[in-house]
């Protein structure tokens, strides 16, 4: 069956093909396949599969970083992939999220609250929603004057915004510590025990199997699932359709009754809050923020993740984020691969060269990204699409030639 499908539906992207298959499964089957799959992913840093496990860096730590980048990619995808607004300064929101947590909970900060009303134990968790709210507000502040600008202007303005955020963090030394950064940022203190005196999430927790990296990876998986549900619900609603309509033809969308400015602002705001969430995770995991982490090059790297994965495709961009984070780490410190001696550090060193080349080649041959998929924009109507698929299968059978009468 699968071979027949591929032969006639040759233009279907990998992502589409996967979704056709997925949609056709019954709900219980979906659960039966999906849950173990996620559990398997979550257990990766504990199983440490050979070859896959990174050599020079902690596999769990890499996966934790992947989790944060995946969130960033999902958030940026809302803005770029769904609403078609080119944001080159997304790293600014990441920074604002991280710095909000840092400013509220680092002893280096003049606004440190952990001594007063915030208990050290729950400080991170309290700071999290505040970080999200503040990034959302900053998205609003950036968006309301600039979203009336045309696409190319928006690109440079957002790029400027990203730089301004970093430079503020760098220059306002009395508040942010400037280049010295903010250290000893709070993290959730959970599961304190003899062997883990500071709990699971502390950077100092290196007690296998659940090391700090594993704990943060799991936390980010949970957050990714929540964010995917939220973004998915939005996508399959009036909001998501408005975004795609704006992306496709903003004027036509406006004339079809879409309040384009309002929904562009929403896209910006939602993208910003997800970026802020990821930033807050970063601050908690690394417990240290400095401005250089939020260089503009990271913005372009996030964009690369979105484009690699296939813009608009939520799961695709997660894979894009994985590629961005994992590949350089895969080579780092590796001296041989499948028995062939390689200089992994050298290869890792060239990561931007490879990313650049890969982007150019990919965009020439697969401009839709590695895993393109068309978004689903309807909350209901699955049956219509399943019927279409049935009809497609009917078409592929050589015997049923009389397709004109429908597929009955």
């Amino acid at each position, binding site marked *: 069956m699968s071979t027949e499908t591929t032969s006639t539906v040759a233009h279907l992207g990998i992502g589409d093909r996967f979704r056709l298959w997925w949609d056709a499964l019954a709900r219980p089957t979906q659960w039966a396949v999906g849950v173990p799959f996620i559990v398997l992913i979550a257990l990766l840093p504990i199983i440490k599969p050979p070859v896959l496990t990174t050599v020079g860096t*902690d596999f769990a730590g890499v996966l934790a970083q992947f989790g944060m980048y995946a969130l960033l990619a999902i958030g940026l995808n809302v803005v770029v992939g769904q609403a078609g607004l080119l944001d080159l300064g997304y790293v600014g929101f990441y920074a604002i999220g991280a710095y909000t947590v840092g400013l509220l909970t680092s002893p280096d900060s003049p606004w440190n609250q952990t001594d007063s009303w915030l208990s050290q134990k729950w400080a991170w968790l309290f700071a999290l929603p505040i970080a999200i709210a503040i990034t959302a507000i900053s998205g609003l502040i950036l968006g309301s004057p600039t979203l009336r600008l045309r696409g190319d202007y928006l690109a440079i303005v957002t790029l400027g915004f990203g730089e301004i955020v970093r430079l503020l963090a*760098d220059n306002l030394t009395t508040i942010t510590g400037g280049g010295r*950064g903010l250290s000893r940022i709070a993290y959730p203190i959970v599961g304190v025990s003899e062997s883990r005196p500071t709990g699971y999430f502390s950077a100092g927790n290196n007690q296998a199997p659940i090391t700090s990296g594993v704990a943060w990876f799991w936390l980010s998986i949970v957050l990714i699932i929540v964010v995917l549900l939220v973004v998915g619900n939005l996508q399959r609603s009036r909001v998501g359709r408005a975004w795609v309509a704006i992306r496709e033809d903003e004027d036509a969308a406006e004339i079809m009754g879409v309040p384009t400015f309002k929904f562009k602002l929403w896209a910006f705001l939602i993208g910003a809050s997800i970026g802020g969430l990821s930033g807050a995770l970063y601050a908690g995991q690394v417990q240290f923020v400095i*401005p250089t*982490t939020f260089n503009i090059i990271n913005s372009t790297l996030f964009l690369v993740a979105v484009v690699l994965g296939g813009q608009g495709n939520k799961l695709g961009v997660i894979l894009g984020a994985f590629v961005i984070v994992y590949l350089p780490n895969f080579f780092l410190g590796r001296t041989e691969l499948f028995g062939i001696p390689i200089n992994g550090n050298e290869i890792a060193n060239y990561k931007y060269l490879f990313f650049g080349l890969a982007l150019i080649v990919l965009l020439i041959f697969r401009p839709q990204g590695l895993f393109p998929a068309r978004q689903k924009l309807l909350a209901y109507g699955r049956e219509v699409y399943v019927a279409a698929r049935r009809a497609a299968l009917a078409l592929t059978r050589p015997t049923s030639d009389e397709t004109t009468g429908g597929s009955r």
Partner: protein
Amino acid sequence: MRRSTPRLAGMAILVTAGLVLAGCSSKSAGGETTASGSATAAGALAITPLVQVDASGKEVKSSGSSAAATPAGKGGAKCSGVSIAMAGALTGANAALGINILNGLTLAVDEHNAANPDCKVEVKQFDTEGDPQKATQVAPQIVSDTSVIGLLGPAFSGETKATGPIFNQADLLSLTASATNPGLTKNGWSNFFRGLGNDNSQGGAIASYLKDTLGYKKVCVVADDSDYGIGLAEVVTQTLGSVADSACAAKVKTGDKDFSATVQIIKDAAPDAVYYGGYYAEAAPLLSQLRSGGVTAAFASGDGSNDPEFVKQAGDAAKDAYLTCPCGPAPDAFATAYKAKFNIAPGVYSVEAYDLGTIILAGIDSGITTRSDLVKFVAGYDGVGLAKSYKWDKTGELASASTWVYQVK
């Protein structure tokens, strides 16, 4: 395109001709060129040690390297499966420093292994790219590698801040050859030792030297935006006191190459000296722009600028610049061996890395097999190395930290 190319080329030549003419008139108005003879190379200039001072700027007599401990030890030590980890930026923009340290350590270990055939110690290198998040991913790898008995690193203060708790909980010796932020020893990490004076001692030394020994009355302190530069500039400003002019205290960014506004501010203030807290990549263009902007004040900077590259980039402008370093000059024998092995001259912290490597190796040779024993060994260590004598106080700072003042001549 074929048809248009010659025309375009012609056009370009015309443009250039116009430009030449335009330049001609301006140049003849300028009239003079300062250099004598053609193609004077900067090769004549080098960073030469001037004096060794303590934190208050007083001269200290050099402790001479004749009695220095050698990595070879007595020979015949026995050990197996032991390795020393080195963590720092080995790739990326900040790699130079990490590689200096790695090379110094490698040299020590190789000498040791040659003299002790029954105790082959391995160097394991871990690349942090100087990025705190990367460092938190690297640290668990180091800790969980059971053969690693001690760590030389991390190289930068930022990544040390981020990874300190990890090494501390594992009680793994963390001996840094380059992280100079004073705050690092205030975290109560019993495993952390600094193999060189911190920013306080270095900054204090040069500030006192400028103020008291050289007798400057007005100094402009410029800092970059790195942890290192800010810290150093802060100490220098404090020690200088009223001599530091806050009106010309400028800030620059790492990566900047043109400093016209900074030069203007300094020119305006007409100071006796300019102190720069930061790295050579910015120090060199800053200095040469100061000079071409007509500022003749003395120039001083710290160990981040103390690199042959500084002289190469700044050229003749570098002449007479004061550069400090908590690190001693590389003894000739060391420099020769280093050059022979890596085909480059030893850089900043190479000597420290060599010395600290020697200390760890001495611990290994003395039969230490556990991480915590090594930490105890280093805490009680008292000996002389190539650069200086090493003995630590309870916080992990050197008991007596001296600073070398160099001058470009």
